[in-house]
Structure formats: C-alpha cells, structure tokens
C-alpha cells in the first residue's frame, strides 16, 4: 500500500459525559486549513454510544465526512475498545493525517493507536503546518518543560498523527448550512476486551465551580501566599471578579487546592482572558502552564521575580498589602460601573 | 552481611579526598561522606593550586590530559592599589611552565576529578548525605558517625573530620570551638566569562599559561580586605576577602564591592565586556595559629579548613588542606594497621603536622592576623600614601626631584606620620619573621 493512497485529514471527536469536547471542533477548524494546503478532505470520527446526533455538528464545524461508531459497548471509554475501533476505521479509510485532542482520554488513547499502526505520533502540539516541499505535516510542540520547542515530522508511517492541546487552535464558526456525508461504521465490541471496568466515578467536591480550563478568569496563588489567610483573600478576589481559584504546585502539596486546580508543567495548561498570579515567582514549570493567558497580572514581593517578565501589569509588594488594596479599589470602581 | 569500613572520612573536599586516596592505596577500607551532590559542589576557593603538593599524592598528574587544569601560572603579581591607581610588583618566568609550579583550576571540576582518582583507588564515596552526629562509646572514644539517612549509623576504626571551616558537627560534639566572627573572613568571588583568546591576549600570556594577582589596598571601600584576580582558561576569577567584622561595618554589599573592583582603572581593561558566569561566597578561617584546635583525639583526626589551617598572608587554604589530609591519611594507615587508634598513638599526627611546613608557616605568621586587624592603615592609608608617592614621582610637572621628595615626605608625615610608619614596619617585620 503506497503512501499516496492515504488521503484526508481525520479529526477524532471525543464525547465524554454525553458532551462533545470542544477541542474536537477546534481541530476541525485547523484540519480545514491543513486539508486545503494538501488538497484533501476533512474527516471526523466519533466513537461512543448515542453519539450519532453529533455528526451534523461535526459537519457544521467543517467535516466533509463523518464516521460514526455507535455501540452500547462504547458507552464508557476503555483503551482497548476505542483503540480497536479507531484502528479499524483508519485501516479502512486511510486518512493521511489524524488529529486527536490532547485531553486525558486523547493522550491515553493515542499512544496505543500509534503503536498498532506503527505510525508517527507527536504529542501535545501547539502548532500545526504543512511543509511546502514534502507536503508532510509539521507538528510543533514544547519539550524540556517548555524551554525548547521542537518541530517534528513523520519520515515514515501512516497516518501522520498528532495530539493537540485544547484551547490552542481557534474555535471555528459553525455553519449549519454546510453539507457532508455521515457514514455509520459497525465495529462491535468484543466482550473479551472489556477487562477494564469502571467501578465508580467521584466528581470533585467543589461542585459549584467551573474547571479551570474553562474559566475565563483565574486567580492563582503560589508559595508566597500559601497560608489560610492568603487563600481566603484570593477566594474573595476571585468571587468579586467572577473568577476561579487555582495555583502552583506548592498549594497542591499543602492541600490548599486540589490537584485539578494546579497550573503548570505537571498540572494544567490554561489560557484564560485574565490570570492574576499572587506570590508566584514564575519558575518555568509554572509559566508553561499559563504564559499564553491574555492578560496576566502579577503580584510579588520580589522585584526580580521572573513572573514580571511575562506579566501584562506587575505590582511589587506583599500580598498582605496589595491584595486587600486591589479588592477595595475594584469594589469602588465596580460600584461606579 | 553488611559491609564494614575501617576509615570514615567526613567531607569530600581536598583534605578529605587526599586522606582517602592515601589510605585506600594502602589497603584501608575507606568511605567518604559528602553532603553535597558531588565532591566540590559545596567547595569554594580562589582558584590556585600548588603542583608540588598534589604530586605527593598524584605524581605527574599534570601530564594526564584529563586533569582539569585551567592555566599554568607563570606570572605572579602583588598589587598595592588605592582608588585611582595601583602599584604592581610581579615576576614572570618560563621556568614555571614545564614542569608547572602553580596552576589555576575550577573547584567543582577539580574536586570531581580528584574524587574519581579516589574511586579508582578503591574509595567508596557517598554523596547527598550529611553527618549529623559523632558516635562515641562509654569512654568517650569516637567510634563512628551518624548520618541523616535512615539506618544511617556507620561504625569504624577511625574517623577523619575534613568537613570545612564551620563544622557545626564538631562544635556540637565538643571537638572544636565555634568560629568567632573576628576569626572568619567572608570571601566573595565572581567568575567573569571572556574567551580563551581574549584572556590570553589581555593578560599578555602564552596560550595555556596565565597570571595571578594578589591585591591589597583601599579599593575595598573603608574595609580592610585583600582581593585576588586569577586567570582561568576562558574566564577570570575576581574575588574579595575581608574579615567578617569588616563586612558588617561596611555599608557596601559584597556584590557592590566586586562591581567597584571591576571599575578600578587597573582591573577594568582586563575584565571589561565579560559576562558574569558565576557568583560564590564562602567562609575562610582567618585566625591563624592561635585558633587551631586540638587536631586529634581517641579515634579521630582533624585536617583541612576544619582545623583552621589557613595561612592568611599567603592564601594557602587548599594547599594546607591537601597536605594535612595526606598526613592524616598516613596516620590512619599506621594506626589501623597496628590496631591502635588511641589518642597517644594519634599524637604522632600532631607532631607530623607541626614539623611540616604547614604549621611552621602558620607559626611564622602567627602574629600576622593581629597585625592586620590592629593596623587598618595597612589596607587604606598605606596603599594610598604609596600610590601618592609614586604618582608624585611619575608626574612630569616641572618640579625638581628634590622638591618632589619634600612633597612626598610631607605627605607621609601628614597622612601617616614617620614614626608611625617606622613602627609599623618594625612590627610587620617582627610579625612575619
């Protein structure tokens, strides 16, 4: 099977808890750009149970063809079953490029698929492009904790696979009038593969809050304000401006915030519109998780803290002095507004 | 069956490692406990190493291409500086290049290389481990050490302490006194990055060879101190040391002090444009002969900086550390082989050290620290006056030599006083005689 017979840019549309993960739509937007450069079509793959209804959305967001694998056996994600389905679709339809959102599920799944297909897989990309000469996919990703960027390509193997960070690619405008094909594929689940059972799911206790990846405003605490009093002030500020609390690793280690609220290399990457960093020095491990925020406000008592180098607005001083003053000032101004 | 050791050495610097090599070569089961990530990671020094001393342990080491030698020093200078000028006295020769007499090295690289030599000799080195307590038996005899690791007690026949100037361990154990502030100097050193060709060119050296400067004077702002400048392969080491009390009195921070030094007319052209690569600070024992603790006891020996062996005048800490480490190693071999590590046996070490140049030199310069501390004019007024004197002599302004002489003497009288000057000269002579 020669390489030329592999055509199309395939995007995996992840459905979790009955909802489509937005990164799928973001990738459809990106796929369209890539596909036009190599004169190919955009394909989408949805695996799950009761997911056929999302096919039309996939078309609206840019897919020309949507493959739907819908079976009760796929109700819960387990690696083996999803990987098998994915591989079967890929072997049947031979897309040149396959993109998967780098969510927990996406990163759990992609390694298995690529290994079976002996395909090249580039993880957690922040940039995609097509090489002018070879027409191959170029994937750019951070390595060494973000200190160094690498651009990777596949010298062999099909499809060329990449997992892409959520919230990096622009969300496209859906066009409900778009036309496309929906192809239902039957890949029944082999009961022998159901060796992994989900026993329980315990949602986070802070039910009243939004995941930090979805928050538009984040108030982040670091080592410099890692006390109950400090946390309280940050929560007050967050409440005032409608934001969510998050923080760097020391806060997680101290039990002040849950791990899902950790921002950084070993935590989450966030791209909110507003990120207020209090008592965070700005070590590279934290920066990689938030440096693409639109507006970064940094408060630190160390005038040489690295965070000031990336902050939109910097205030030098202790949180004890600054944060209450900020809250007061904002209250005044918000009263006026 | 757990592995046992005859000799435990606390500290993997030049003193401890020298003792280790000597002992291991003689077949003594030796283990070195180092608190840093690797030997040398916690060590700081000016940068100059004496070939003769190292050759006693590693003959012809400098012929080994892997030896981390920065430059071979063939040009040594002493500088008296005031804040607008400097008088240099130097000696340059080809005779110190092959075989080399004095070399510059980078502490971390050197200590690691030296530690590898120890490993080759059969020494076991444990890093990232702090010795927290000295273990003794009921008679008070030292029988081993307790480290900070779980299950971290190590018993042995003899312990050599080579754990540096401060050693809270030995102070806690009552083996040594705490270092008084007036007996400690704080040294700060900056390594300035240029390039190999640039260093060779600026210092007028041959490739691979270099210069050392010992600088005395009032460039240390209202503070009595000595500065050093040494050439490394592609960097220059610039450092200032002063008594801790002096640092406290001075309003200037060590960083600012080095910056001032870099602006000095004699120094600036040599380091201009270079990038600061590294910044270190370290304690140096400065008390001299009178502060040396008892070097031995039942089951243990002291060597190196922890024994306050440091020649303030000649800046020879590393040198003395290696030598006493070697002597301690030899003593350990004898004592362990003869099965006697008692105080009386180990007193031989004390005699050896006293008879070596180490203590002979320290005794000779015994009064020197006092001289320095009690005569601040040595650091300030004197270089000032000497500088003025030379400037006056060099200045071409139409005055006759006789007139100039009068001006000079008047200056000396005014700033120092002839009798004071002569008295100082006499005391200085006596203190180093």
């Amino acid at each position, binding site marked *: 099977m020669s390489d030329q017979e592999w055509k199309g840019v395939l995007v995996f549309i992840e459905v979790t808890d009955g909802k489509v993960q937005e990164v799928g739509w973001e990738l459809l937007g990106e796929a369209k750009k890539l596909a036009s450069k190599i004169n190919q079509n955009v394909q989408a793959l949805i695996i799950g149970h009761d997911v056929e209804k999302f096919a039309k959305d996939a078309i609206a967001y840019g897919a020309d063809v949507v493959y739907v694998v819908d079976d009760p056996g796929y109700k819960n994600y387990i690696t083996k079953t999803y990987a098998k389905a994915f591989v079967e679709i890929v072997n049947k339809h031979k897309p040149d490029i396959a993109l998967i959102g780098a969510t927990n599920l996406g990163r759990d799944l992609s390694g298995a698929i690529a290994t079976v297909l002996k395909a090249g897989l580039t993880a957690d990309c922040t940039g995609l492009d097509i090489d002018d000469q070879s027409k191959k996919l170029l994937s750019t990703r951070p390595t060494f904790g973000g200190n160094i960027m690498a651009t*990777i390509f*596949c010298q062999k193997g099909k499809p060329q696979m990449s997992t892409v960070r959520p919230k990096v690619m622009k969300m496209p405008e859906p066009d409900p009038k778009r036309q496309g094909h929906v192809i239902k594929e039957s890949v029944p689940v082999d009961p022998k593969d159901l060796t992994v059972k989900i026993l329980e799911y315990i949602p986070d206790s802070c039910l009243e809050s939004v995941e930090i990846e979805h928050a538009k405003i984040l108030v982040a605490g670091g080592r410099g304000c890692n006390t109950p009093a400090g946390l309280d002030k940050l929560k007050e500020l967050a409440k005032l401006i409608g934001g969510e609390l998050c923080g760097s690793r020391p806060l997680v280690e101290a039990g002040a915030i849950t791990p899902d609220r950790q921002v950084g290399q070993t935590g989450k990457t966030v791209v909110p519109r507003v990120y207020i960093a209090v008592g965070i020095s700005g070590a590279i491990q934290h920066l990689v998780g938030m440096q693409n925020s639109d507006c970064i406000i940094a408060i630190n008592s160390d005038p040489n803290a690295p965070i000031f180098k990336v902050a939109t607005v910097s205030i030098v001083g202790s949180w004890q002095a600054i944060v209450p003053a900020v809250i007061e000032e904002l209250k005044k101004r918000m009263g006026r507004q | 069956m757990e592995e046992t050791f005859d000799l435990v050495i606390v500290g993997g610097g030049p003193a401890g490692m020298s003792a280790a090599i000597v002992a291991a070569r003689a077949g003594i089961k030796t283990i070195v406990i180092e608190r840093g990530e690797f030997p040398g990671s916690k060590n700081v020094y000016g940068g100059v190493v004496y070939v003769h001393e190292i050759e006693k342990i590693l003959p012809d080491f400098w012929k080994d291409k892997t030896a981390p030698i920065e430059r071979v020093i063939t040009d040594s200078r002493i500088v008296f500086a005031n804040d607008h000028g400097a008088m240099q006295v130097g000696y340059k020769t080809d005779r110190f290049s092959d075989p080399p007499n004095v070399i510059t090295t980078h502490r971390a690289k050197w200590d690691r290389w030296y530690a590898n030599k120890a490993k080759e000799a059969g020494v076991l080195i444990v890093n990232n481990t702090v010795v927290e307590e000295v273990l003794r038996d009921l008679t008070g005899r030292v029988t081993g050490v307790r480290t900070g690791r779980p299950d971290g007690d190590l018993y042995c026949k003899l312990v050599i302490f080579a754990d540096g100037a401060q050693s809270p361990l030995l102070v806690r154990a009552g083996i040594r006194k705490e270092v008084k502030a007036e007996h400690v100097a704080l040294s700060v050193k900056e390594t300035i990055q240029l390039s190999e060709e640039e260093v060779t060119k600026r210092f007028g050296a041959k490739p691979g060879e270099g210069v050392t400067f010992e600088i005395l004077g009032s460039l240390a702002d209202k503070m009595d101190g000595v500065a050093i400048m040494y050439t490394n392969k592609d960097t220059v080491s610039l450092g200032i040391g002063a008594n801790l009390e002096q640092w406290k009195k001075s309003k200037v921070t060590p960083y600012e002090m080095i910056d001032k030094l870099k602006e000095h007319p004699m120094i600036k052209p040599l380091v201009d444009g270079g990038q600061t690569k590294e910044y270190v600070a370290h304690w140096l024992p400065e008390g001299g002969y009178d502060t040396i603790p008892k070097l031995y006891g039942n089951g243990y020996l002291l060597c190196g900086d922890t024994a306050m062996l440091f020649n303030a005048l000649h800046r020879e800490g590393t040198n003395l550390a290696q030598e006493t480490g070697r002597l301690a190693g030899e003593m350990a071999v004898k004592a362990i082989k003869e099965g006697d590590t008692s105080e009386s046996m180990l007193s031989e070490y004390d005699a050896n050290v006293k008879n070596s140049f180490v203590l002979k030199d320290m005794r000779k310069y015994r009064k020197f620290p006092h001289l320095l501390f009690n005569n601040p004019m040595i650091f300030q007024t004197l270089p000032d006056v000497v500088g003025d004197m030379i400037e006056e002599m060099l200045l071409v302004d139409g005055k006759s030599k006789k007139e100039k002489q009068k001006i000079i003497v008047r200056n000396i009288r005014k700033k120092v006083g002839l009798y004071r000057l002569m008295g100082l000269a006499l005391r200085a002579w006596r203190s180093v005689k």
Partner: protein
Amino acid sequence: MHIVVLIKQVPDTQEVKIDPEKNTIVRAGVESIVNPFDMNATELALQLREQYGGKVTVITMGPPQAAMALKETFSMGVDKVILLQDRGFAASDTLATSYVLAQGIKRLEADGEKVDLVICGKQAVDGDTAQTGPGVACRLSFDQITYVTQVDKIDLDTRTIVARRRLAKGVQVVQAQLPALLTVEKDINEPRYATLRGIIAAERVKVVEWCAADIKADAEQIGFKGSPTWVKRIFTPPPREGGPKFDGPDAVKKALEVVLDNQHFKEAVFGEEGVCKR
C-alpha cells in the same frame, strides 16, 4: 508478584539550552537525574512489594551513564536493575523506545520471570509525550491504567487490580486484569530517602546490561530507522514581553488604571462572559 518499573534518565530541565550554531541541545555540564515521575513509579513498586510480597525489577533504555539512574533506584531498595544499552537504540522516538522496552520485558518472561505489573511515570520531563507507557502496554497486550493517583487493592487470586485515576473533573475508580501497566501521577506518593546501606549497596551492584541481540530486537524497529518521527528543527520559544511594573505607595492605584483599561480584563470581568455560570 513481579513488578517491573520502567525509568528514564533525563537532563535537569531547568538548565537545558540550545547550541545556536549546531541547533542541537547542549548536554555538556548538565546534570542528569532520574525522571521525577519515575521516582514515584519506583516508590509505588516498593510499597506494593512491601504489601504483597514479590520482587521489583527496574529497566531503562539509555546510554552507559543511564546506569547511574538505575543505581539510584537500587539505593531505594529494588531487587534488580537492567540497562538496555546498544548503539542501535540511539535516536529512538517513542515508538522505537516502547518496542525496545517491551522486548526487554519479553526477555524477562522468556527467562521464566513472569511479569504481573509494569509501572511507569506518566511522562518524561524532557520529551513530555506520555506515549511510551501506553505503547508498551499495547505491545504486551496488558490492560492500561493511566494517571494513577492511588492503587486501592491488588487481588492475586482473581488477578485484578483496582486503582484510581485523576481525570479532569473527578476521580475514576477502575478495575483491570493482571498483567497490567500503570502510569503514575506525581501526587501518588513521596519517593523514599535512600538508606545509607542502600547507597553503599548501589555503589557495589552489578547492573545487568542487555544489547539488541540479547532482547532479539529487530534492527528495523529500533533507533533512527525504527522511529517514524524525526525532529525537523528545535528552537527557543520567543520570550513574552512584560508590561509596566508598579512599586511603592501608589502602586495599586496606578496599576489598576492600566488593568481597567485592558481590553481582555474589561470584557472578561464586566462583559457578559464575566458572569460565572454556577
């Protein structure tokens, strides 16, 4: 129970820089460490051994100096350390690496040492791909559990393992069949401080070394040739520019002038988006 831990020796990421001329990573003078996630993996293996009995084997694929990383795990108390070392393994991407590691495990099994559990760190802090663990699981047909923050129970009779996974919005408790492969998160445990005896033993231990032939590795699947992904180029990301900095008594007032003038802040806090939907 036989537990295999897969580790990687990585450069200390804080210090890594690019050589501007050769466009390669400068490794000279950069310290090497055991990948932090792999220390957690090793600690988990030791804890499980304490609880259920058995032995722990640590394997790494790397150059000769990777033996130091193995020795570090040995000082923590593992039973055996194996280095998969061969010039042909160099320049392997994750596909080739998972192939080599899986071959190494297959060799252990062929030698009669059946493997019940493989534990890996979630990702290596240099590559950051998190692909190697799942790749190995796939090749061995082991059940895979990623992002593990706790192992609840192992039942050697029913050959099941129950573990907790950290997902975006909650914790999932799953049960898998042995043999299985886990990738662990950093918050799963605190790696133990090696004992003095452990360090001494680590200095003395003989690291088992296997080359490509020893693990029957196919030349086409290892190293450069066996890697579908190649690096086209590496570069230092452009630094983000910082804005105004405020200090002193009026800092807050002045800073807030700028903040409240910022488009993003205005839209986020005062626009519709600012209303937090709870």
